[in-house]
């Protein structure tokens, strides 16, 4: 059963150099994006470890987004290539375990793509609203 007015909780890991700047620009440009996204700033998208994502799901996130620089634009040259390899592997593993891989997305958003940040979050929010609460991957004791 999907509850009425379900507002999903989204955790977004944003790379300091691109996606966080993109989100910042969305703010200064007064673009309105869904407020249920919680942004965590990370030095690089490759800083995001698999356990961070799993931990977010365990403790109440309905969706997790990893946002980094476009391939080729990484501040540290190759960081997002590593992200790509790792996250692809994680996605195939979670899908193999039937853990709703749609709840986890990876996007490349650069510092001036405020509109893309907005549309990505909106789109993801809609997907999660359709999917409902993430009961399959949540620790039931987390109090959410």
């Amino acid at each position, binding site marked *: 059963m999907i509850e009425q007015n379900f507002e999903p909780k989204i955790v977004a890991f944003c790379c300091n150099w691109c996606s966080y700047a993109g989100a910042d620009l969305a703010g200064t440009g007064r673009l309105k994006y869904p407020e249920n996204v919680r942004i965590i700033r990370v030095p690089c998208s490759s800083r995001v470890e698999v356990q961070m994502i*799993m931990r977010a799901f365990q403790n109440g996130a309905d969706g997790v987004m990893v946002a980094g620089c476009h391939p080729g634009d990484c501040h540290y040259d190759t960081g997002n290539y590593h992200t790509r*390899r790792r996250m692809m*592997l994680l996605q*195939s593993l979670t899908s193999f*375990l039937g853990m709703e891989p749609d709840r986890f997305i990876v996007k490349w958003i650069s510092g001036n793509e405020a509109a893309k940040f907005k549309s990505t979050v909106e789109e993801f929010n809609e997907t999660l609203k359709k999917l409902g609460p993430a009961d399959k991957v949540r620790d039931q*004791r987390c109090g959410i």
Partner: protein
Amino acid sequence: MRNITNELREIAEDLLESKKVDVVLGYAKGEQPYQSVPFAAKKKEDVENLIFDIFSYSSLSKYLLDDMYRGKKVALVLKGCDYRGLKIMLDESRVDRDDLYLIGVECRGVLEKSKLKKKIDATLFETTLDLKEDKLAISSSKENVEVPYEDVLSPYCLACEFSTPHKEEVDIILGEPGKMTNKELTTDECFAEIGQIEKMDEEQRFEYWKKQLNRCKRCYSCRNACPVCTCRVCLFDRENPSYLDSDTSQLAQHQFYHVIRAFHISDRCVGCGQCSRVCPENIPLHLLNQKLIKELNKFYGSYLPGVDEQPAPLSFAKADDPDPFEKEEK
């Protein structure tokens, strides 16, 4: 198949006598039928307990990380998969090659006890095994059956591509090369369950794994038995942040543990199958590892951890890797 136990004992005695090594790590007969347990021969008298047979499952290389063996000269009995595990440890400078004397053995696969039990009515206590050239003869007071090796060998061994350490890499090699079965099986055939699970829809997959993972007692046997799971401080032993607690009622915690465990050894797994073998609840953990190996091989080219000299697929990344995340936007 030639029995190498006697040769092994001679070598071990020689090594201990001449003080070349302080201890010989090998296998001895266990208390259960068809069980070989790790055994450390420290004196000349211990040597007669050493054996090597088709039930010598466990990898011994992880004992080297124990404080007990630090700074000592150790001789090690190695099958192909054990060597791969050790090679990863050597590459990471976890152990010093100069302190080791490696006794490679020609492995032709180990027997799977659960498969063996299905073939006979009698209990394992009552049976005797005879290893013939292409068949295994099982005899008990009730029956005499002959089964081909591929029916009773471990599935991991049927898929094995590196059954014996290379001659140049070990100090001595025992036995003669050859395969126990003539049937060549591909990895997909050996792990047919992966294909079956992939074909299920998401809900079925979730239910399947829910049933499997909910049995987990979080005993960490799979982690401890794994020859490549060698972090100095394991993520699950860390106290800050402490990711898991002792409550085993939450599926989310099981998912967390098994996803992270499989992921952390994804490009290091040597495919020995010890994780599933030691699992007291018979959770098919090797399927997670094999699935990841399959994905890695599919996208980044085939790579055998502990054999190939090239860097592991997750230790580097390239600009022209496939990008599954941008596709939908184009």
